[in-house]
């Protein structure tokens, strides 16, 4: 079965999770949260969530602790940049595959 059955004649999508495919495959570095530093985890209260607010891919959860959907995280590192307590480190993907 080919792709013709989708009925599109140009690039087309509707809003929904994963419409652009498994974009997590693009990732070069993975954000890793240090829960000893992360404000909501440390205080066990809904607080901060700047990573959730700034993530362009909406892969950060607004939960305690914060979870990251690695299927779609492209590894842009914005979360690590905006974290006020430097709780997120960007670790090269190569280190996880060994």
């Amino acid at each position, binding site marked *: *079965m*080919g*792709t*013709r*059955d*989708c009925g*599109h*004649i*140009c*690039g*087309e*999508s*509707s*809003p*929904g*999770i*994963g*419409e*652009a*495919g*498994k974009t997590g495959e693009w990732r070069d570095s993975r954000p890793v949260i240090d829960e000893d530093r992360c404000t909501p985890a440390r205080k066990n209260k809904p607080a901060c969530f700047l990573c959730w607010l700034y993530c362009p891919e909406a892969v950060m959860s607004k939960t305690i602790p914060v979870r990251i959907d690695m299927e779609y995280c492209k590894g842009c590192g914005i979360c690590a940049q905006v974290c006020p307590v430097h709780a997120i480190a960007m670790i090269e993907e190569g280190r996880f595959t060994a």
Partner: protein
Amino acid sequence: MIDGNRAAALGAKLSRVQVVAAYPITPQTPVTEALSEFVERGELQAQYVNVESEHSALAVCSSASLVGARTFTATSSHGLAYMHEMLHWVAGTRLPVVLACVNRAIGAPWNVLNDQQDSMSQRDTGWIQMYARNNQEILDLVIQAYSIAEKACLPVMVCYDGYVLSHTEMPVGVPSQDAVDRFLPPYKPHTILDPGSPRNYNLVTLANPRVNAEGVLCHGYMEIRYLLQEAMEKSKETIADVGREFSDLFGRSYVKLLWEDRMQDAEIAIVAMGSLAMEATVAADALRRDGLRVGVIGLRVFRPFPGRDVAGALGRCRLVVVFDKSISYGNEGATCTEIKAALYGSGANTAVHNFIVGLGGRDVKARELADAVKKTLSLVEGGALNNESAEWICEI
């Protein structure tokens, strides 16, 4: 009596275009002037969008087409070059935009006169390209272009020679609005941006197919490009069907993607596009008076290329002389390359020779075309024809 630019503007008006966005450039300017006057006077119920560039003009047409409007733009030369990126976007989105290209030379050096380098340089953008031989064809092809574009889901470029046609008055039969309305129903978009049913178009599309959020396997980049090529191939039939329908309703013949003049008994054929092909018919008159059986083929449609029609029409000839008003640098005139490719494998044993003429508005006289044919014929008969390179008719 109207000039070619007026014919193009009238064609757009009769097609009841709903959005016009164009930026003036010599020699296309009178098209924009006429259309803005039609809109200003209320003769054409359309939005005329003023833009700061040709790139924006085609971006406006692209967006308007995506929300379901019939759109028109016109340009020339550097304006078309500036549209280059958007030409690809419009074709890739399969939008039925119609563009009138008033053929003009392209710099450097600076020149405002006619040749066909501008549109020929846009050959591979996925647009249907049609070349009008006279002002009647300009009007007729603009109207047909909407029918073709909307059936095939492909944009159409209607090309006509700057000044030679754009600023030259000729008798043109202008059909009634009622007759055009019968031929061309209102545009039904294949795809439409609608806030009630949100959609993204032209999202990042990677090489491989993907399963979308609804679990449906969707095209990757290659599949979408395949469909564009498939649509171009299929559009040959659409163009012929629309031409036949137009011929039946309006009495002017557009049944093939090329036109033939005295090809029935021709052993020598001249091939050209646009007004140059009409000039070639005058050369053929002179050559016939000299006893040579000469016919002319005018390529009305260059993309999709009517290779089978070309091979069928030329296969019996012993010599084909191709005149190009553009050059693919490092090779030869692009129509000549296409003619050779069409003949390859057809079983024809035909000599093909190419002349580059009329660049930057250099006058092309019928006598020069006839002399070029005679000279080529003597080379063929002497076994001395060099098929390696195109000859230029200039004074270098």
